[in-house]
């Protein structure tokens, strides 16, 4: 098939020893596992266990807020010893409530019932299974897989095009567990109703491609596509552009154009969940960089600390300078290695001093445009930077700041070492804050206008009622006209002037006298109330409460 090209991007030479993708090794099960009760998008997970409770591997510890309540399975059997605040992988070094699980070493497992006849199951059933097995996107975003497959699509892309150099977990998985990946692609395609299914690999992954092709008989409809190794071609939107020649509309999801992208590890996990009833309790993590003694790819139990993973890789070398969770372009520098690996942790980099960008002072932008050339979204990063520095948020919105995928290409090539992505992140959050404020203001205005409308409506009702009552009064008084003067005099005890000026009765002036009478009554009432505040309130609505004096 013919491939399309993305704009910009970088051809990054993989550094020596960067992704020594050897065989997958199993990281030993640590005695203690840590499971943050937070989703990758920052939302809290609903905890289902209490300290002291014994859990078995695969049991639900917590669940997410999605419609199917995708669970967080227990990675091994043992006791929950505490729920405590621990540092999570977050740019601001935040803490989150974390389940602490003491492994008992038995690794006693509860499996869900296998679904060998999955091809005859409804998508709903299979999505239920994915949620119960705790399957989320393993490529890094961590979106609940069951939730992502709600809407049927025509194209499913299984993403094996590793995004960043140093990361080798997907390549190793495809090479060693190709059967799971291919079968998982079939399951996901069945759920999504996709007729067009592709698996994308980078053109350097020869062994992995061969392994996948060898398993293709499991799912003959699956097309194996090799894409050029250009960063960030493994990004969801970029991969869709390369394979389908279509762009995901700004602000929308791929499903809007009938495409869904799932990582190869997600596909393999989905297969284990459906065919074997296994919950997601492990994942493949790359350990790379010259700051560790032995790099490699590890099968890691979720909740393992980075410290334990690095220990499995032989420990740190003397010149370990920076610890990064994720890749070298988008990864997050961590303050310490006591942080636990979660379902979205695809790589741990320990960079040596000379692998790390030196903290040189930021120089002024020389508008060289290298950033614009590298941008896969065709933004003009230099213009965005100028607007952000001037505090012009509206301008950045118009120039597509929200479309930035934060791939870091611009910041990588910048000869002035300007941390462009940091600027864009803060600009985006400023835009989001401004949008939230605007929503609040809109809401307040709506409420205010609604109140005004209600008051106006009530006022109109009142006027109408008064008019109706006047008419009724007028009719009544037309009947009792002869006694009208007397009635006015007796009533208006505190309003002599009014009475004195009361005109002689004729039919057309009845209205006016009725009004005068009402005013006089009101005054009397107010006087009464002033004298005796404790007295029960008197109904004031003329329609509801005909004046007592009216009674014969």
């Amino acid at each position, binding site marked *: 098939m013919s491939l399309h090209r993305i*704009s910009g991007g970088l051809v990054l030479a993989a550094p020596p020893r960067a992704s020594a993708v050897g065989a997958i090794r199993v990281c030993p099960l640590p005695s203690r596992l840590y499971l943050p009760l937070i989703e990758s998008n920052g939302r809290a997970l609903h905890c289902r266990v209490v300290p002291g409770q014994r859990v078995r591997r695969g049991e639900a510890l917590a669940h997410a807020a999605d419609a199917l309540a995708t669970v967080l399975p227990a990675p091994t059997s043992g006791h929950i010893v505490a729920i405590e605040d621990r540092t999570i992988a977050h740019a601001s070094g935040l803490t989150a409530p974390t389940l602490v699980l003491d492994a008992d070493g038995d690794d006693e497992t509860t499996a869900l019932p296998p679904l060998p006849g999955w091809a005859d199951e409804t998508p709903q059933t299979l999505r239920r299974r994915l949620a119960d097995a705790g399957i989320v996107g393993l490529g890094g975003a961590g979106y609940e897989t069951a939730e992502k497959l709600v809407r049927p699509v025509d194209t499913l892309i299984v993403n094996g095009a590793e995004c960043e150099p140093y990361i080798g977990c997907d390549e190793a998985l495809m090479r060693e567990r190709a059967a799971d990946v291919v079968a998982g692609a079939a399951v996901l395609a069945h759920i999504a109703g996709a007729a067009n299914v592709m698996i994308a690999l980078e053109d350097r992954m020869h062994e992995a491609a061969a392994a996948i092709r060898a398993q293709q008989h499991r799912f003959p409809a699956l097309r194996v596509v090799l894409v050029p190794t250009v960063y960030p071609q493994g990004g969801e*939107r970029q991969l869709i552009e390369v394979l389908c020649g279509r*762009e*995901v*509309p*700004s*602000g929308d999801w791929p499903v809007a154009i009938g495409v869904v992208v799932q990582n190869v590890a997600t596909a393999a996990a989905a297969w284990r969940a459906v065919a074997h009833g296994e919950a997601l309790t492990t994942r493949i993590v790359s350990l790379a960089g010259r700051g560790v003694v032995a790099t490699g790819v590890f099968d890691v139990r979720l909740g393992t600390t980075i*410290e334990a993973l690095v220990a499995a890789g032989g420990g*740190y070398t003397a010149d*370990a*300078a*920076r610890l*990064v969770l994720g890749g*070298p*372009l*988008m*990864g*997050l*520098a*961590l*303050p*310490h*290695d006591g942080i636990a690996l979660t379902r979205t942790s695809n790589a741990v*980099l320990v*960079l040596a001093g000379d*692998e*790390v*960008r030196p903290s*040189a*002072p930021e*120089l*002024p*932008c*020389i*508008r*060289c*445009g290298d950033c*614009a*050339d590298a941008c896969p*979204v*065709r*933004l*003009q990063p230099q213009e965005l930077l100028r*607007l952000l520095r001037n505090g*012009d948020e*509206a*301008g950045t919105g118009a*120039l*597509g700041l929200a*479309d930035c995928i934060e791939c870091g290409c611009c*910041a*990588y*090539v*910048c*000869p*002035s*070492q300007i*941390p462009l*992505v*940091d600027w864009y992140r803060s600009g985006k959050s400023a835009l989001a804050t401004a949008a939230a404020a605007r929503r609040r203001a809109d809401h307040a205005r709506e409420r205010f206008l609604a109140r005004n409308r209600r008051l106006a409506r009530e006022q109109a009702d009142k006027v109408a009622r008064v008019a109706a009552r006047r008419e009724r009064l007028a009719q009544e008084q037309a009947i009792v006209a002869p006694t009208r003067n007397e009635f006015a005099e007796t009533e208006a005890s505190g309003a002599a002037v009014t009475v004195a000026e009361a005109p002689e009765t004729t039919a057309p002036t009845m209205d006016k006298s009725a009004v005068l009478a009402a005013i006089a009554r009101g005054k009397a009432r107010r006087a009464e109330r002033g004298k005796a505040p404790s007295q029960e309130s008197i109904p004031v609505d003329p329609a509801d409460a005909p004046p007592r004096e009216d009674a014969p």
Partner: protein
Amino acid sequence: MKTFATGGAPHLPAPVRVRRVMAEVLLALLPGIAVHAWIFGIGVLIQLVLAIAFALTVEAAALRLRGVDAAPFLGDFSAVVTAVLFVLCIGPLSPWWISALGMLAALALAKHAYGGLGCNLFNPAMVGYAVVLLAFPRLVSQWPAATTDLPTAAQAIFAGAAPESWDTLSSATPLDALRQLTTQGRRLGEIHNAALFQHSQAAAWTAIVTAYLLGGLYLLWRRIVGWQAPVGVIAGCVLLALPFWLFDAETHPSPLQHLGNGGLLLAAWFVATDPVSGCTSPRGRLVFGIGVAALTLAIRRWGYYPDGVAFAVLLMNAAAPLIDRVTRPRIYGHATRVNDAHD
């Protein structure tokens, strides 16, 4: 538990730094400097030393006045690049104070008054050259017809003493002579038989042009510059000059004669590619280059100055923000181009 210092992504070292960009540009200018020195003599090198010294002095003083730490900026070579470009524009026997004046205008006025590196609207070297060209048109456009030795050059530059015989000075570049002669009503056929073009000087200018071309191709190969601006200038020049030349070769110079003047190729590779004062979008750079070519040809044809490259570049500098604005590419996922963001 081991602790680490954190830092923002990307974590890999930058592939290119500003300092290296400028250093590569200087490297690419070396052939041009060498050929200039070989043809016009030691005066070129004296001017270079003078201009670079003035440039660094003005740069340091301006940074100090702005209250900025001078160290990272003096080392970024950007002032040196400005000085070299300026020297390649002026006649090699111009008085020493021409360099001082030029660098003052280029760096103090055009660069630091606008906010320093990255903020200047106009190319500093071209502002410096334009100022001295407007103020002292005769002094800065004297090109010696032959190599001058050190005493002669030093005397001319520092004492203002003309060489023994001003006859050794040609009035200007061949193209300028051509223009002057055609305005006198001479036909090109006659002019080519005139003394100037029998001289080895035409060959000398060819050597200069070749040197610039080599430097430019080096920058292209090192990916320091994009192809758009140089191709815009060169292709623009050829395509605009060709119809006139085909229409009447007797009164219009050929495209090759236009390109054969050093100024245009210097501008194509080293001035129109200036990132700060040029366009940033790829299509914008192409438009920028074509604009430089068109304005240069127009000034050569109808203007009063020997060469219009500097003015053409400055005019296009002024138009660059507008060009950038209308040549923004369509953003991924957007149906149409965004070109009227409020700013």
